[in-house]
């Protein structure tokens, strides 16, 4: 404000008047909540590494869950790719019901889609092999391109817990 006072005395007076009457009664709109977790009183909410780092750390402490060239500048099919990724995520979490312990990572290379995830060892290997084939077959039919599942299994749900808040 000081530089304004020096420049134009009249403008400075107006600014002063403005600062007296500028009380905002509206709700603050800059609240950011998505991807952030509240601390519980008992400190027993389990967070994975992915959940423990809020979205603004993407590219610093954690990386993206979808890897493709559609998000580059002037690239083709950005919206279709995003919608397909959402569909793949929903389909995999539903097919591997209560077994997926992490985010589903979708990597696209040329026309191949590679899906990686952490799976709990709660079902027999035989069922797991069936589900892998089932998921790959159906997704490749819908996406019209080869789909590969690259899973890693964990013995217990608590293996993926990074910290408790």
């Amino acid at each position, binding site marked *: 404000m000081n530089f304004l006072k020096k420049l134009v005395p009249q403008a400075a007076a107006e600014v002063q008047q403005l600062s007296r009457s500028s009380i905002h009664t509206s709700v603050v709109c800059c609240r950011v909540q998505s991807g952030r977790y509240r601390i519980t009183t008992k400190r027993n909410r389990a967070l994975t*590494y992915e959940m423990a780092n809020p979205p603004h750390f993407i590219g610093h402490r954690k990386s993206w*869950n979808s*890897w493709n*060239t559609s998000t580059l500048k002037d690239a*083709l099919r950005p919206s279709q790719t995003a919608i397909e990724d959402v569909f793949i995520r929903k389909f995999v979490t539903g097919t591997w019901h209560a077994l997926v312990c992490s985010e589903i990572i979708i*990597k*696209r290379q040329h*026309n191949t889609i590679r899906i*990686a995830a952490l799976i709990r060892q709660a079902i027999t290997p035989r069922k797991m092999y069936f589900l892998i084939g089932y998921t790959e077959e159906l997704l490749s039919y819908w996406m019209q391109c080869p789909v590969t599942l*690259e899973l890693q299994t964990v013995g217990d749900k608590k293996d993926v817990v990074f910290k408790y808040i």
Partner: protein
Amino acid sequence: MSAGLTRLWERLPLKKHAAQSRIRVFSNQDQPEIEDDEEFRVLSLRTVKQQFQRRQQVRRDPITPPRTTRMAVDQDWTAVWPGPRSFHPASVPLPLRQGFTERGAAAPSKFANAELMKIPNFLHLTPPAIRQQCEAIKRFCTPWPKGLETEAKWQRHFPIEVTTTDYCQSLPTIRNPEARKVTVSLKLSDLRFDSHSRDKFLRLVGDRYNKETDILTIVTDRCPQKKQNYDYALYLLTACYHESFVTEPWEETKSEADMEEYLFERNQSKISAEGILNWNAKEGAPKESPSKSYANSVEQLINEGENEYNLGKYKEEVKKMLNIV
């Protein structure tokens, strides 16, 4: 039973005392049975389970330890990891860690680490793997043509440079509309012109010619295919070149005001200079014409403008021509 005993006791009065004591003993023992008999029986319509059955233990197959524990030190890594794949901790015998933690704490290990699975790895492109692949494709390679070793050599044989772009993208389609663009560039000094055709060619190509680098660049993207655009670019180049050698009848009407550059040959200054040189010359004698250096200095003076150097040079030339020392 106690009623029967009482009756027995009444029949045998002599042994009353002994019997009494015996009865007490009996009655003490049999009391629960007596009460059972007298109580109402409960009608149970549902069979209530007396004991909770113990939950059956889920039998799990024993989980095999990670493969890395059984790997030989001198194994063939290209066979373990032949192609691009997400990271798997049980197959990579490296003590990797990734992730940000509080200061002093160790980073999360490779097991159940989603961050390691996210990042692209180059475990399939180790130096031995690349060497193997190069060996495999060596038989499809041909030797470099002789006589084209250096850039200067091959630029003499191939003056035209064609630039196209292919796009690798993670999409179900391999087509990219940007791939149709073709850029053809060449040095204008590689083409042969006379003064008229060069002037006309430059007028035809317009701003596709870069004066500083002497490079002509033609970009074509109006056809849908790369091949068509390439053909079109070469057609444009050929057509412009041949058209520049054609002199149309209306080109003769170009007057002095239309000239973009001062030419000594076409101008009054040449006639004046010849007039001065041939002053008082006899009829039939060979005409003297001004020297080439004089012509150059006049052209320079008018085309580049008057500056100290040009004026000085013009002065020298005039002195030389008129033999003024």
